[in-house]
């Protein structure tokens, strides 16, 4: 990138700390913070109401979200907020939406993916070392960035793993929001654009829950954004060995934290380096732009070394995801598979108004994207560094059709975490700097632009998490569980204390999470054991096939969750993605299936709490 020429800015009223004090710079931050806190309280009340099956919990949830989003988005659209106020609003906004996940379950990790890292942290704490086999997802233990930091915090403070996880992911959330703001601010020279870009990043459907959970990607993404910012600062220096080392450390931290994020970082650095070298050749008489060649090479080398030395299972893991998505795409294109119904998750369909909101939000996003693309393209000579954001944003409409393909929808959904890094900035440019909006002056148009930004974010919230699981489950409700109940945790903990750790268990999908963590057991993991839980659990009788599965899987215990009979999981399967009836269940699994081990010669019912039963099945071989 070339050295910037002097900026031709119009003189305006300037405020400094010496002249007016920090209070003036903060603007309306404090009263908006009160509004946002009220919004968080509304969401917490919604969570509490849903746990007790009381009142209109979903209505409370949405009221809370509106109170959090609307004031912040509207104020960020305003011209007269200072940079400090915008920074404060962005940090506040990111944390408030993070707190909506924390209030879901403040004292326990509620989501299934969180248990994967939970188990890795337990492995580190119990053994004092890394890289142990993780029976929930073996590939995750090859990326010890997040569990390493969390285990360190547990060791230093003595707090629980879930409390440490909340602190670490919360820190990552602040880093992510500030890094987006600071990067766009540096590249555009517009704090307003930067603030809105960071705010609109929250419109990605994964922001509310997925990126807030205790998962390796939730840390890698902030580290990615931080590294890009550090490289950007490095590009402003002629020499900077210490900063080079810091950038290299950032690259390495991303590589050991998450596979896909590290590949994206390597790609971004390589593209940056190639573009800078190309520009430098075309303009030999000017100061050559900084090309992060060394960092790009380091990123690629670190990824390769890590794959060879530590994370060899990544190839199979990502390969299976990519081949599933590819096959699904091919089958749909050739007519072998029908298209996926939108706004459905397993057996559940989102309410009509949420579906409408999502469609409107996507349409508004596409319109704002078009307007923003025009703004950025027209200003490409004045603000060339925004072009990469535009290129990233333009991938978004291309991936929208993938949501109609069952096996590729997940890939399209997950990619939004990265796409919105560009999309947020382009939409923001469209919302505040396009010709139609520039003509609008005054408070009402400002409110309207705030409403448009809020609408885009509401659309992201509406498709963030399936409708029923967006709020926590009532543990006494007679329905199939989608999170671990206190009984399930007690049953898992009992297994650890009474049977010893590391016992081979067969169980349903949710119970295995508790067994692997609270019980520190070894639930079946089909890819490495060759036997799936459904082979033991799904048949209606203890037939020879079940005995063979128990024998070959070296299964010693079975945990039966009796509430499976109360409904069909929204995921469409009870035990394992590969079970024969997955996605085809029309009625709940029968009690005959759940009770098949009772009074069975060779099986002992050794634990019962009313909903969970543990059988010793060593005699069934």
């Amino acid at each position, binding site marked *: 990138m070339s050295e*910037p*020429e002097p*900026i031709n800015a119009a003189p*305006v009223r*300037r*405020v*400094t700390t010496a002249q007016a004090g*920090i*209070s003036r*710079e*903060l*603007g309306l931050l*404090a009263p908006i913070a*009160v509004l946002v*806190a009220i919004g968080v*309280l509304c969401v917490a009340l919604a969570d509490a109401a849903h*746990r*007790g099956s009381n009142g209109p919990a979903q209505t409370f949830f949405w009221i809370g979200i509106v109170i959090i989003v609307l004031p912040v988005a509207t104020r960020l659209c305003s011209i*007269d907020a200072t940079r400090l106020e915008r920074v404060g609003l962005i940090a506040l906004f990111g944390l408030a939406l993070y*707190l909506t996940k924390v209030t879901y*379950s*403040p004292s*326990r990790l509620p989501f299934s993916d969180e248990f994967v890292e939970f188990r890795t942290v337990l492995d580190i704490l119990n053994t004092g*070392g*890394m890289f142990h086999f993780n029976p929930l997802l073996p590939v995750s233990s090859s990326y010890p960035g997040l569990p*390493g*930091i969390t*285990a*360190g915090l547990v060791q*230093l403070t*003595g*707090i629980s793993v879930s409390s440490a996880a909340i602190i*670490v992911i919360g820190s990552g959330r602040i*880093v992510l929001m*500030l*890094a987006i*703001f600071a990067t766009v601010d540096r*590249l555009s*020279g*517009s704090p307003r*654009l930067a603030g809105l870009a960071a705010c609109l990043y929250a419109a990605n459907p994964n922001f509310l829950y997925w990126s807030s959970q205790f998962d390796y990607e939730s840390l890698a993404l902030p*580290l990615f954004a931080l590294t890009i910012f550090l490289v950007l*600062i490095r590009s402003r220096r*002629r020499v900077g060995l*210490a900063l080079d080392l*810091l950038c290299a450390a950032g690259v390495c*931290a991303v590589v*050991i934290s998450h596979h896909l994020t590290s590949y994206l970082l390597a790609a971004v650095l390589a593209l940056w380096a190639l573009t800078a070298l190309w520009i430098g050749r075309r303009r030999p008489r000017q100061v050559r732009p900084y090309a992060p060649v060394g960092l790009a090479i380091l990123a690629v080398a670190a990824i390769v070394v890590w794959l060879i030395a530590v994370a060899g299972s990544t190839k199979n893991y990502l390969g299976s995801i990519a081949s599933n998505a590819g096959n699904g795409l091919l089958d749909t294109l050739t007519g072998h598979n029908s298209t996926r119904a939108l706004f459905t998750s397993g057996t559940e369909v989102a309410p009509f108004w949420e579906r409408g909101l999502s469609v409107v939000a996507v349409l508004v996003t596409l319109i704002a994207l078009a307007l923003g693309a025009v703004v950025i393209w027209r200003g490409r000579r004045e603000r060339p560094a925004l072009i990469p954001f535009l290129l990233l944003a333009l991938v978004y409409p291309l991936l929208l059709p993938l949501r109609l393909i069952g096996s590729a929808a997940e890939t399209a959904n997950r990619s939004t975490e990265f796409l919105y890094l560009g999309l947020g900035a382009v939409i923001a440019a469209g919302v505040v700097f396009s010709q139609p909006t520039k003509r609008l002056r005054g408070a009402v148009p400002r409110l309207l632009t705030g409403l448009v930004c809020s609408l885009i974010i509401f659309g992201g919230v509406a498709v963030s998490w399936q409708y029923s699981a967006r709020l*926590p489950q009532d543990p006494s409700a007679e329905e199939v569980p989608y999170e671990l109940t206190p009984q399930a945790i*007690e049953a898992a903990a*009992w297994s650890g204390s009474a*049977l010893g*750790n*590391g*016992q081979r268990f067969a169980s349903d999908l949710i119970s295995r999470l508790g067994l692997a963590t609270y019980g520190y057991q070894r639930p079946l993991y089909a890819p490495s054991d060759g036997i799936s839980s459904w082979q033991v659990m799904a048949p209606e009788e203890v037939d020879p096939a079940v005995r063979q599965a128990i024998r070959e899987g070296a299964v*010693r215990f079975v945990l039966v969750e009796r509430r499976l009979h109360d409904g069909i999981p929204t995921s469409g399967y009870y035990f394992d993605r590969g079970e024969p009836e997955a996605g085809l269940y029309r009625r709940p699994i029968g009690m005959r299936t759940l009770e098949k081990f009772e009074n069975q010669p060779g099986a*002992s019912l*050794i*634990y*019962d709490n009313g909903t969970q039963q543990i059988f010793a099945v060593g005699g069934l071989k």
Partner: protein
Amino acid sequence: MSVQRRLDSVLGLIGAGAILCALLVLLAKGTAAGTIGGVGLELVAPGCALTALVFSRGELRRHEMALTALGISLVVAALGALLLDGLPGSLGRTPWTMFLLAITFAALTAALLLRRPRRVPGAINERAPLVVRRFEDEDDERAPSWYLPPLMNWFFGVVALVLIAVAILVARDAANESPGFTELSALPVSDAGGELRLRVHVQNEEGDSVAYRLRIVGAGAKPSETSFRVSAGASRRILSEALGERTGRVDVSLYRGSAPEPFLHASYDPSTVQAPVAEKGR
């Protein structure tokens, strides 16, 4: 105060803070102070020290310094965990504390030795954005039309914090509420004389004192029945009669008070594994 002296005082402050945090970690683990110390030592101190070392030329704005302090601390902790894993002594509390202190003080010492003036005359303006021309109506430092006096800012800030605390407490209380339940378990054990018995364990999590009746069929010549009361949160252990040479099934039923039907069951089949042995690793 000169730039150099201000830098020195900032470095001193970071060093003193790191030592205080380390002391809290070592002396007050498990308390609120220890938690603050641990968070400060792992997630703040190394990043502050490295930010002071690398960005001593005043090229970063305040929020950018906050970003690098927090972000670099995460980077140091992630790489540090990997480094400690490769060193003898494991990932315990003392190695962590020593490592984080060492990084912090190494960076502070380097910053002291390499300290430079904030701006090099004639150097490029490192705080300037990478643009040739700004968007219309845009400026770095604009005076807000609306702002509050300092006292009101403090007031609203405290109110917001209180509301957040209330929200978390409300959610936590709701999450900790659980429907009452009882746990029944039955495992074979060898008594002091080497005889095999069934150890029955009843744990009351109903939230209230409950009268139970336990019936064991199959162990001994005739069914045995025991009534007892267990207070909330407490448990009761009962050893069955010796199973002897009997090879049949033993059934355990737990009744609530005088209810005719049992509500929990357990059973023991001698052909199942009798003494579970922990299986480590894969």
